[in-house]
């Protein structure tokens, strides 16, 4: 009878399986001569491997996991070897946290591996759990210089090598310059703010109405003061925010940027209330800098060349800004005498700017989507 019992229970039709066998998730981010890593290992797998359920009640609590942190660290590190160009890297676990994946709760090990020299070939030897679970897989996500690749470790392939394309400082900084100039062109709010401030720069206010400005030199001086003030201000806050010295909530920053555009437009319609536009440029430039910082952070800053990328990004922003000025200024200077400039371009343009910026402000401040864009 015993043998029949085995027979049927093994042959019954396919059961409804939980979706997947055991996996661990390993992320490695290569930074010049060290690696920032995160390793998510299922608590159930750790329980099978080293035993976590101290009180044997079939439930793992945070207290039980925490008291086994040393064992978890030793077990994990003894099953992963990283080496760069034949030299073993030394790994240190920085912290142990908790996270959830689709099949349960995972222990998260954040670590740092120091290798002796800049990493060109990274060898990963992964041997977690294969001895007790032959279907276990290690899913690797390898990040280097903004690019991500993936690989799977299994019992059949435990060791894999990856070539790390060491990108020169030059290409890296070119990339950030490109991103910076691209952003000021794509971020219409910055362009509109700048244009709104520049529109009246080819005119002067006399006897209560607009008149064409005289010589090119004074116009240039005017433009230069505005652009320099804006640049100084946003460079300052961009640096402070990127270096994590000041942080502002993004909703506040984005709404204030929209408000600044509205104000810049209003200032053109009521020139008496805002005579010194460079001060406006400086004041709101401070806020625009926080906006730039958000973009830069989203790009993923390489920790080992933070300053270089910050400076490159800023240079990019200035190049983009200069291109706008270069396109605007000669044209405006040429048509400044015409009848239409103060009426159509300045007044009409400012009204349009105000209208657009009001929509932005409403959307950003109240978290609404008024127009699909």
């Amino acid at each position, binding site marked *: 009878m015993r043998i029949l019992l085995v027979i049927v229970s093994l042959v019954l039709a*396919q*059961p409804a399986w939980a979706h997947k066998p055991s996996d661990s998730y390993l992320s490695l981010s290569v930074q010049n001569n060290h690696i920032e890593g995160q390793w998510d290992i299922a608590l159930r797998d750790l329980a099978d491997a080293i035993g976590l359920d101290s009180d044997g*009640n079939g439930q793992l*609590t945070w207290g039980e996991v925490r008291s086994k942190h040393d064992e978890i660290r030793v077990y994990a590190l003894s099953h992963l070897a990283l080496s760069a160009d034949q030299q073993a890297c030394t790994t240190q676990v920085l912290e142990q946290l908790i996270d959830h*994946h689709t099949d349960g709760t995972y222990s998260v090990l954040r670590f740092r591996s120091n290798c002796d020299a800049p990493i060109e070939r990274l060898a990963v030897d992964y041997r977690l759990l*294969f001895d007790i679970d032959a279907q276990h897989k290690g899913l690797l996500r390898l990040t280097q210089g903004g690019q991500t690749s993936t690989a*799977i470790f299994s019992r059949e392939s435990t060791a894999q090598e990856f070539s790390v394309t060491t990108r020169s400082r030059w290409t890296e900084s070119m990339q950030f310059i490109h991103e910076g100039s691209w952003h000021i062109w794509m971020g219409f709010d910055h362009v509109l703010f700048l244009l709104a401030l520049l529109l009246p720069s080819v005119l002067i206010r006399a006897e209560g109405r607009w008149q064409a400005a005289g010589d090119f030199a004074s116009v240039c001086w005017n433009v230069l003061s505005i652009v320099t003030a804006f640049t100084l201000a946003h460079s300052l806050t961009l640096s402070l925010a990127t270096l994590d010295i000041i942080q502002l909530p993004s909703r506040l920053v984005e709404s204030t940027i929209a408000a600044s555009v509205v104000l810049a437009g209003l200032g053109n319609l009521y020139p008496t209330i805002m005579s010194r536009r460079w001060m406006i440029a400086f004041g709101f430039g401070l806020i625009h800098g926080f906006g730039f910082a958000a973009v830069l952070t989203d790009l993923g800053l390489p920790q080992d060349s933070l300053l270089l990328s910050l400076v490159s990004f800023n240079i990019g922003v200035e190049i983009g800004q200069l291109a706008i000025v270069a396109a605007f200024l000669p044209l405006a200077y040429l048509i400044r005498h015409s009848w239409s400039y103060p009426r159509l371009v300045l007044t009409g343009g400012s009204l349009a700017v105000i209208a657009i910026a009001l929509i932005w402000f409403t959307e950003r401040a109240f978290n609404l989507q008024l127009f699909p864009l």
Partner: protein
Amino acid sequence: MIRSLTVVSVVGWFVLSEVGAAYPEPYQPTEDAQVLQRLSFRASDPVAHELDSLRTNLRRNPRDLESAVKLATRYIEQGRSEGDPRFLGQAQAVLSPWWSEPTPPPAALLLRATIRQNAHEFNEALIDLDQVLAAEPNNAQAWLTKASILQVQARYDEARRACQRLTRLASAHVLLGCLSDIAGVTGQSMKSRELLRQVLSETPLSGREHIWVATILAETASRTGAIREAEKSFAEAFKVGTKDQYLLGAYADFLLDQCRYQDVMSLLRSETKADGLLLRLALAEQALKLPIFQNHTAELAARFTAARERGTTVHVREEARFTLALLHDARRALPLAQANWKVQREPADARILLESALTAKNSPAAQPVLDWMTSNHVEDVHLQQLAKQIQKAPF
């Protein structure tokens, strides 16, 4: 239109909702007492004791085939009853000293075949079984496993021959179960139900065997439209009291076909771990227009993604059904159903392919199933209805 709206709303919800962000950032729990994970068993459970002592035996002598086979068998059984594929990997690890040998001993080969069968590597499993049977032509277990794989592949004549080899090797009800399961699909459901009814009423069966026979009878009856007998046999299977993942899924499908969504809810409310069962629960929730349907749909989407990331293709049938019935995306469901049909050919596989082809308005895609139905005289009211719809369809 509705399809794309649903896809957009599900994806959008997934992005915005907590499930999408369910794993936002690793964190440090604040309370020591916070329960993070439930394990399969307590230290005091008999299963844990049994596995422990088997493991200890094996550790003392890792190359002892008998201890390894005992432990691996126990792991596979545990995996099947919990629906947890981790146990299969553990069984494989236990067998690793023999796994890669050119000719492993028959006992190890038989388990390797079972593990491969569960990974849907049917052809590899059959090769293993033939190797076992070459060495031990009287190995009943190998014949039975072989028959069930051949049946999944719709190789019914060979499957029948494999069953018949059990005549003098196992007791009569095993032979009958084996044969009736095939007969129920291939045009002899009356005969099949009669035999199964007889087995159930006259033979003393173990719990597992009772579930096995009653489930075959229930499914056969359900396919032929004998609703009352199906209901009665499902009840018979549940009466045993042993939790069985396959039975839960089969009964839920039966209830879904009857539009008894509330009953599905009460049956599966707490069965969210196994994908197949969560899928059926979500289908009932969708029909009842319950908001939690969106959480479960997003959860399933995340699971299929996770399975694909590791390169697993065991859940194609479920994924096709999910894509068609919950995401309402027939164009993506159809290739999944077709790929699945290449691997397994049970009535459920036929049904998802017909439904996908019908919704995607692609009748040529249904042809392989229609051929299979004709050449095997398949008896299944749902399949026949779908086939009729497809043949009448203008596309």
